[in-house]
């Protein structure tokens, strides 16, 4: 049998069949995987009845209910003390930081000294007036006109009048000194920066020794202190102007923070901003200028640890029932 084994007639065909079988197997194994994969991390998505229903999506930023308040200073000067730290809760009127008040205190001391001086002058003038009046009364009580010379009476009258006017001028100086002291106290009070509302300190950008200019809080300078009422937190959601007509205002929205899309929070409607504004860049790219306009909707978040002021969020809002989908012309 073995000697009859022919290369061309037996080995070659069998080899070819084996070869083609291996080739087929390799081809089938080597076919590329073109299937779609489920995302490894959850992207933001609409849930519940919004999942397959009419809805409007928007992106937004978390902000305090009072919006962020950039605290400014009424007067410029050196910061002597900062009394709050980021994260502190402060009551309305609580002192936030102090600006150098030495000059104002010196003027207060000056005014106080002037008050003392004026008071002394008043005492001196009223004594002199009293003496002059007594003398004048004495001269006038004399029955005999020859007992005292006429010139003596005139002198006594003049002394009384001079003492009276000295007293008036001293009183006026006292009033001036008192108002100067009040002005110095107001100055000192203005150099003490207080919380305008009760809320949470979000950022402190001043340190003792730094100079604060009165332009602080705007322009290129960072605000000295940022605070806001963080209970509750609000979100400001941007809705594309083309979708404005579809939004069901007043309905609660489903909010997910960026990076934690598995968290779905129901936020209650607060208000819609009356003005449609150009979309603010959320990407911090200076080069980004986008000409789309957006409607800003404000929603209140329930108490949650997941949100922080300034955080970006994705929002899904129910659309008006039966509102036709808009197409861009």
């Amino acid at each position, binding site marked *: 049998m073995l000697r009859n084994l*022919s290369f*061309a*007639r037996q080995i070659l*065909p069998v080899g*070819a*069949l084996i*070869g*083609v079988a*291996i*080739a*087929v197997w*390799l*081809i089938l194994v*080597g*076919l*590329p*995987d073109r*299937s*779609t*994969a489920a*995302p*490894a*991390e959850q*992207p*933001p*998505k*609409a849930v519940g009845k919004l*999942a*397959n*229903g*009419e*809805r*409007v*999506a928007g*992106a937004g930023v978390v902000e305090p209910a009072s919006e962020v308040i950039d605290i400014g200073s009424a007067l410029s000067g050196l910061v002597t003390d900062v009394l709050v730290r980021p994260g502190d809760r402060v009551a309305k009127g609580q002192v936030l930081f102090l600006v150098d008040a030495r000059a104002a205190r010196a003027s207060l001391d000056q005014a106080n000294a002037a008050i003392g001086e004026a008071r002394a002058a008043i005492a001196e003038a009223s004594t002199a007036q009293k003496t002059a009046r007594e003398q004048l009364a004495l001269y006038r009580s004399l029955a005999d006109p020859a007992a005292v010379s006429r010139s003596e009476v005139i002198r006594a009258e003049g002394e009384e009048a001079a003492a009276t006017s000295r007293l008036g001028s001293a009183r006026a100086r006292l009033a001036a000194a008192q108002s100067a002291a009040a002005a110095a106290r107001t100055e000192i009070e203005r150099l003490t920066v207080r919380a305008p509302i009760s809320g949470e300190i979000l950022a402190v950008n001043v340190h003792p020794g730094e100079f604060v200019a009165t332009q602080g809080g705007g322009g290129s300078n960072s605000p000295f202190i940022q605070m806001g009422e963080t209970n509750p937190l609000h979100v400001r959601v*941007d*809705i*594309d102007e083309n*979708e404005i007509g*579809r939004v069901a205002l007043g309905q609660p929205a489903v909010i997910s923070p*960026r*990076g934690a*899309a598995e968290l779905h929070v129901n936020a209650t409607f607060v208000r819609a901003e009356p003005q449609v504004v150009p*979309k603010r860049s959320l*990407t*911090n*790219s200076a*080069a*980004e*200028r*986008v000409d*789309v306009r*957006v409607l800003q909707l404000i929603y209140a978040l329930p108490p949650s640890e997941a949100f922080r002021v300034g955080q970006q969020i*994705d929002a*899904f809002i129910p*659309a008006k029932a039966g509102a036709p*989908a*808009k*197409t*861009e012309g």
Partner: protein
Amino acid sequence: MLWIAIRMLTGDSQKFYGLLFGIAFSTLLITQQMTIFVNLVERGASGVYNAPEAEVWVMDPVSRTTDVSYAMPSTALDKVRSVPGVEWAVPHLRAQANVRTADGDLEGVAVIGVDDATLIGLPKRMATGDKNVLFAPDTVVIDDVGVTRLFSNGASPLGERLELNDQRAVIRGIADAIPSFTSTVVLYTRYSNALNFVPGTRNRLSFVLVGISPGQTAEGVAARIEKETGLKAETRKEFARAGVDFIIQNTGIPTNFGITVFLGFVVGVAIVGLTFSLFLRDNIKQFGALKAIGVTNSRIVQMVGVQAGLVGMIGYSLGVVGTVAFIKGFGSNPFFKGFYIPWQIPLISLAAVVVILAITGFIAIRSVLRTEPAAVFR
């Protein structure tokens, strides 16, 4: 009787191997060229296949492929998210940029910005490193073909610093991606980083990648997105097809490979036809003898059929094995990265082999059928 036919065939080893060579050669030529052609034009769809999560791609109506796109305003993302049937939608940025390497060389790269939070849009697998490295600041992930182009000296690119639009970019991983048609270096980074890496124009969002809700079809959702947003939405399959069509319409590749495949066919017909005719003519006396002992014409047709079948089977097998060996052998070459043999192509070459043998067999057999038994004595 059929065994006699096979003995007759293999008896003349010169012509037998000549026939095998002819069939094997044209099979190899047809299969291999078609394989390279299909893989090459599929490179046009590599961008689509490299984002395995996306079931629908949304783009500006004038965008054509992953590389020929026009950016949309950033609120397009929210518009797409508003469409029912869309389970999720994430931004996707694709742009060209110039990168300055540590040596100071300039190299054109494609920058792909994937979703910040979920990294949707990255290729399925990483060659080195973990996908999460992208969460580190200024990180880019380079594709494996890009490594060979940007770091030709074999040094590891991990930790290398690049300069993109005056920004620092650090390579922290290598993605296992299908190369693009032009084999450009591809840098994957997060969307917010990509905005800084690519010099800015007004609108930046190239694509919105969409996942569809359970129970929806990709086609239905794509149609609804188009209707409600006015943007163009294509399913993964359609968009891959658009990439392939773009290559076919804008390059000479189909003509080139078409000619080669046709030549393979012609060479097959010529060699096999000639050899087969010669072989049958040489054996005309044997056929005459068979006819003389009463073998019918149909029996002779069967014998020739068996001979052709054996030649075809062995030759075809050798050709296919050769192609597989070729593709596997060059698999490590970056040019052939991701090449595969579509299962349809061996069937097409099988059909071609059958046609070649049918044509040549038909031509060759006519003389045998006309043979008189008396031919034995001539």
